[in-house]
């Protein structure tokens, strides 16, 4: 921290930091505890990886993780593939009803999940997707797609128009303009959108709980929610916390992996 920073600013920072990090820290501390220790309120615990060993040695945890990874990746990829051309049209072309479509998309992504749950449930059973991973992909796309289109349309809109025209004069059709000129330029935006979509689906709980029944299609958030102890009078906080913390690792890893791609400033030098 810079010397001479005013005290109130440091205080505000400290409060914000504690507010954000304390729950995580508490989860970490709890994940090291077992048995009666779980009820301790001491803010420290000796690192004990027993809970982690137990979670990781359970084959069903690995299967659930694979399910989560599969459905979230599928939603991310499908959403990007469908959203790119839609966002291109909405962001770079002007046509009748464009504003209405954008407003509808925004409206869709604002609906509470619970509002469309019963409708989606009927649809999914009719399609024969119930208790399959496909049901999650289908349901998650309902929110992921408008979100991705809305985000990407903004990136497309901000690209300088002269670039299109220069490319047209160079002999590019729409498809080549999209793939050779625009996509490389908004690559950071595409990566960010894909990551956000992935994370939303990775953490998605309500749909996963509603549309899956058996272990075969269960995802991590649901499986963590269903962790229980042999006795009905006991809740295994330690194991739940270690499973939860483990579940946060893949998104963090992905963000680190793509971090350098998200660096902005790629369009510098296009105009002026």
């Amino acid at each position: 921290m810079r010397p001479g920073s005013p005290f109130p600013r440091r205080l505000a920072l400290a409060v914000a930091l504690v507010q954000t990090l304390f729950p995580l820290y508490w989860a970490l501390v709890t994940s090291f505890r077992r048995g009666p220790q779980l009820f301790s309120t001491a803010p420290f615990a000796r690192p004990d990886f027993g809970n982690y060993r137990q979670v990781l040695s359970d084959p069903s945890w690995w299967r659930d993780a694979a399910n989560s990874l599969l459905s979230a990746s599928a939603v991310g990829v499908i959403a990007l593939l469908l959203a790119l051309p839609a966002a291109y049209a909405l962001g770079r072309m002007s046509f009748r009803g464009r504003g209405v479509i954008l407003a509808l998309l925004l409206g869709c992504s604002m609906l509470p999940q619970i509002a469309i749950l019963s409708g989606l449930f009927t649809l999914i059973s009719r399609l024969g997707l119930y208790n399959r991973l496909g049901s999650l992909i289908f349901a998650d796309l309902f929110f992921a797609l408008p979100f991705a289109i809305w985000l990407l349309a903004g990136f497309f809109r901000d690209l300088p128009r002269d670039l299109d025209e220069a490319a047209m004069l160079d002999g590019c059709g729409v498809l080549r303009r999209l793939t050779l000129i625009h996509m490389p330029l908004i690559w950071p935006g595409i990566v960010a959108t894909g990551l956000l979509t992935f994370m939303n689906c990775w953490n998605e709980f309500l749909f996963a709980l509603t549309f899956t029944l058996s272990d075969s299609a269960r995802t991590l958030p649901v499986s963590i929610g269903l962790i229980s102890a042999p006795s009905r009078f006991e809740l295994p906080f330690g194991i739940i916390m270690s499973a939860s913390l483990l579940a946060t690792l893949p998104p963090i890893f992905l963000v680190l992996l793509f971090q350098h791609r998200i660096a902005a400033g790629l369009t510098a030098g296009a105009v002026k």
Partner: protein
Amino acid sequence: MALVELKNIRKTYHAAEIVRGVSLTIQPGEFVVFVGPSGCGKSTLLRMIAGLEDISSGELLMDGRVMNAVEPAGRGLAMVFQSYALYPHMTVRRNMEFGLRLARMPDAERAKRVGEVARILKLEPYLDCKPGALSGGQRQRVAIGRAIVRHPKLFLFDEPLSNLDAELRGHMRVELATLHRRLGATTIYVTHDQVEAMTMADRIVVLRDGAIEQVGTPLELYRRPCNRFVAGFIGSPAMNFLPLTVVPTETHEVRVELAGGVSLTLPIHYQTRLVGIPATLGIRPEHVRIAHGDEAAFRGNVLAVEHLGALTLVHVRLPDDRMVVIQAEGDADLRIGADLSFAFPAAHCHLFDAAGVSCALAG
């Protein structure tokens, strides 16, 4: 080299007519400059020629072929944008060869062309840089290079120098003119800067409100502007305008009376229709002569003096509060607040009627 013909070209946007019936023939190899104030439709006209805007009505012909419906890439032209519009994710080399790649030109020939253009534009050291690493002038050269490598029949420039600083602009002006002589391609150049127009053009097209005001060589426009608008637009500093009345005479020449009772005889064919209407006298600052004695018909008070080194601009206030700018020698000794007497040599006076149309064409 292309022969470009515009036949009554019009552009309407939402019921507003931006370009109102422009007809023009541009000879192969000619350097034509479209000039006019902002909003005069010059850029729209250029974009219609490029194929970036639809032509609402009229015909565009290149070498005798109607081009109205031909795709921009199929018109055999290249355009340099005001914003350069370089592809930021590609190196200078890729930027220049992008169009050639899309046209599936063999590698060897492509490399040869890019090398040649890079040499002409002194871009060789930067071929593997991205545009973001270049200065404004270098980016501008890349944009020009990207246009040249395609060996277009027609070059279009849309205010290409307006993002550069004054010094670089002067330099690029000379470079572009040299380049045009070397390549010989037909060129259409849009600018709002009359200096660029005067220095580079074979012919200037002055546009206002979507219509052509006058077409001619720079000197034609300078010497014989067809109306008050062109007279005021071409030439720097701008022409002085003073109101006058034409008095009836028996001679062939026009006799005019200006405020303050000054009268002049102009070598312009006398027309009775001019008598009594509110007309305007135009004279360029460089033609006003500081004089003494009988010759000096006008007197004024020096309000401001701008020393430009080689010459001096004097802003003089006439007794009726109108301003006249006089261009004097660089070493002229003029003091603010002093009285100054001067004359308007009749041969350099322009006379514009009430509608602003020049009456000088007869003389």
